[in-house]
């Protein structure tokens, strides 16, 4: 490293070596300080994406408090908000939430519990999901983690779109209410790839109606789609799982991705397929910092 040319002439050779070392150390420290999240060589910069993503919505809806985006359409429509706030005093998801608490506490046949598979006994950890598993090189969502826990303890996996998974994730979300989303992308090219794949999925048009997720949730949040008010993409997963009046019950993220696909007349993928997990990874990451508001209720 030829830095010695501009060092003061009175600094000896030992001094030059020390200066080079100091320079290397300080450069390294600077890089570490700046790179909270990995940046790929080809320019994938999730942190930059997240800032741009959040800025877009903050600018589009300047009257909305940042945390309020976790409440979806209620942040954008006064009338709906009023009805929702009333119902929150006595929310429709109470039954599912109670069922979830019971299911979570119920031991497996081998005597172990869901709590044994998660950090902090599975309480107050929902904001850390999805996570990137460096061992398998894949994104692990909360739903996937729950079924993996079952299978690791000799139980059969449960449906990703059924009531039990919805109830379990509702309970886990409830224990994390208010905690800011805290998704991490480790310094692993596979994690960056998963993030980028999720981002690409989000913006890709699909189905006969040729809509991408962004078409509704980036270009038209707050607008009406038939009788519904479209939610902004920012914070859209913070309320999951959701009790939908339309469903008459609690539904998982898997279920929502599948129905969104069908609604644009695309054949849905399998629940927890790579695309859906990567999508959840991307959407959650760019909403980092926003509070968990789940389980939510929606029309």
């Amino acid at each position, binding site marked *: 490293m030829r830095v010695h040319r501009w060092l003061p002439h009175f600094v000896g050779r030992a001094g030059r070596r020390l200066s080079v070392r100091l320079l290397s150390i300080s450069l390294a420290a600077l890089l570490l300080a700046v790179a909270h999240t990995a940046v790929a060589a080809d320019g994938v910069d999730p942190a930059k994406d997240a800032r741009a993503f959040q800025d877009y919505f903050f600018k589009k809806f300047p009257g909305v408090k940042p945390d309020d985006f976790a409440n979806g359409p209620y942040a954008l429509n006064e009338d709906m908000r009023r009805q929702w706030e009333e119902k929150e005093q006595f929310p429709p998801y*109470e039954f599912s939430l*109670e069922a979830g608490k019971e299911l979570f506490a119920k031991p497996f046949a081998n005597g172990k519990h869901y709590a044994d598979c998660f950090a902090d006994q599975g309480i107050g950890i929902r904001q850390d999901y999805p996570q990137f598993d460096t061992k398998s090189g894949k994104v692990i969502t909360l739903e996937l983690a729950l079924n993996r826990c079952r299978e690791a303890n000799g139980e059969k996996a449960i449906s990703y779109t059924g009531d039990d998974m919805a109830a379990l994730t509702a309970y886990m979300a409830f224990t994390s209410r208010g905690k800011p989303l805290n998704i991490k992308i480790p310094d692993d090219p596979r994690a960056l790839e998963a993030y980028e794949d999720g981002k690409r999925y989000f913006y890709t048009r699909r189905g006969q109606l040729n809509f991408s997720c962004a078409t509704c949730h980036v270009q038209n949040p707050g607008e009406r789609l038939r009788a519904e008010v479209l939610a902004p993409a920012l914070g859209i997963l913070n309320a999951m799982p959701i009790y939908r009046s339309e469903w*008459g019950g609690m539904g998982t993220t898997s279920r929502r991705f599948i129905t969104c696909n069908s609604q644009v007349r695309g054949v849905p993928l399998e629940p927890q397929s790579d695309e859906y997990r990567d999508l959840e990874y991307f959407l959650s990451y760019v909403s980092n910092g926003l509070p968990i508001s789940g389980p939510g209720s929606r029309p």
Partner: protein
Amino acid sequence: MASSIRVRAIANGDTTDVQTLIQHPMDSGFIKNDKGEFIPAHFIQELTFEHNGRTVFVADWGTAVSKDPYVKFAFKGATKGDDLKVSWIDNKGQTDTATFKIQ
């Protein structure tokens, strides 16, 4: 088994505000299951609220009311600490009843 009825009744001066959430399938009889068979109609027909033996609210329901119905209403003449009795009967003759303290 836990009651199907949840109630929150709060006295505000002369008026008591009541909110209720009832767990019931409220099947209309028009929906088919996965096998293509109609799910038989199963819905609450009458929902009654009583205070001190006096009926303060009656709902005559049919198939248009959705699953897990939520009801909100207000009535006069009760005070904090009074009992509010809630009962329902459905088209299959099944019933449930519960009593709550007005807060």
